[in-house]
């Protein structure tokens, strides 16, 4: 039970954090050109966005949860289980960020999720 709870915190924390940061980046707007000065200005605007800072503690919480999980369970179980975050993240992208997830993209996400689980388990 506590393992499932920690796994939920791990997955929801990392995907929630990444979704908040994505939202912040979309609000920041893309840099006009990929030159050093423009990138620095872009970074400056990004860190003034509240959504960016909402994402950071969520990702820290997720990392802490990973450390706790690794003290309970073997790494060959923890990392494959965390591959579920690809599916959870895609659900979040669709329902929270309003992205259109086509059938091809879903199929790709499921393959990646299975692939990462296999690679991490071996």
């Amino acid at each position, binding site marked *: 039970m506590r393992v499932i709870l920690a796994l939920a915190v791990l997955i929801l924390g990392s995907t929630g954090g*990444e*979704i908040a*940061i*994505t939202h912040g*980046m*979309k*609000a*920041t*707007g*893309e*840099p*006009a050109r*990929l030159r050093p000065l423009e*990138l620095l200005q*872009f*970074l400056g*605007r*990004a860190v003034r966005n509240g959504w960016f800072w909402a994402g950071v503690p969520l990702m820290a919480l997720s990392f802490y949860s990973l450390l706790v999980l690794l003290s309970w369970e073997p790494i060959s179980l923890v990392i494959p289980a965390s591959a579920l975050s*690809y599916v959870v*993240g*895609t659900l*979040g*992208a*669709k329902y929270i*960020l*309003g*992205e*259109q*997830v*086509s059938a*091809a*993209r879903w*199929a*790709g*996400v*499921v*393959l*990646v*999720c*299975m*692939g*990462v*689980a*296999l*690679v*991490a*388990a*071996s």
Partner: protein
Amino acid sequence: MASERRLRIKTLIMVLAMVVCANAGDLMLKRGMSQIGAVQLTASGLALAFRMTVASGTIWVAILFLSGFLLSYMTVLSWADYSYVMPAGAFGYALLTLLAVIFLHETVSPRRWVGVALICAGVMLVGQTKPRTTAVVSEAVARCA
């Protein structure tokens, strides 16, 4: 459409930069920390580890790469879908396996090869889709707001 093609190429370059920086950063971090050795979890042990970490050139190279990862990740998410970038980033696992075989001559289990094949197929499928499906604020609009 020319802009569609440009968007795709721009996104692929940034995802590649993301993957290379993340892997190189992790690798350098691992090398740097193994030079330092096992850290003692006492006040003096942690203080010593901290001093050795900030004095290590390898660790600073790792930090540089990981900062490059963060910057390319943030930049690509300013225009591309999260549901495009996230699975595409998993290509790093496949790349790491290939590098381990080519340079470190590691043997890779069949199960891991199946995983790598699934990741490559999945990344190719996601790569076929449109990198951006939501409206994006251009820099000019963001400045006015």
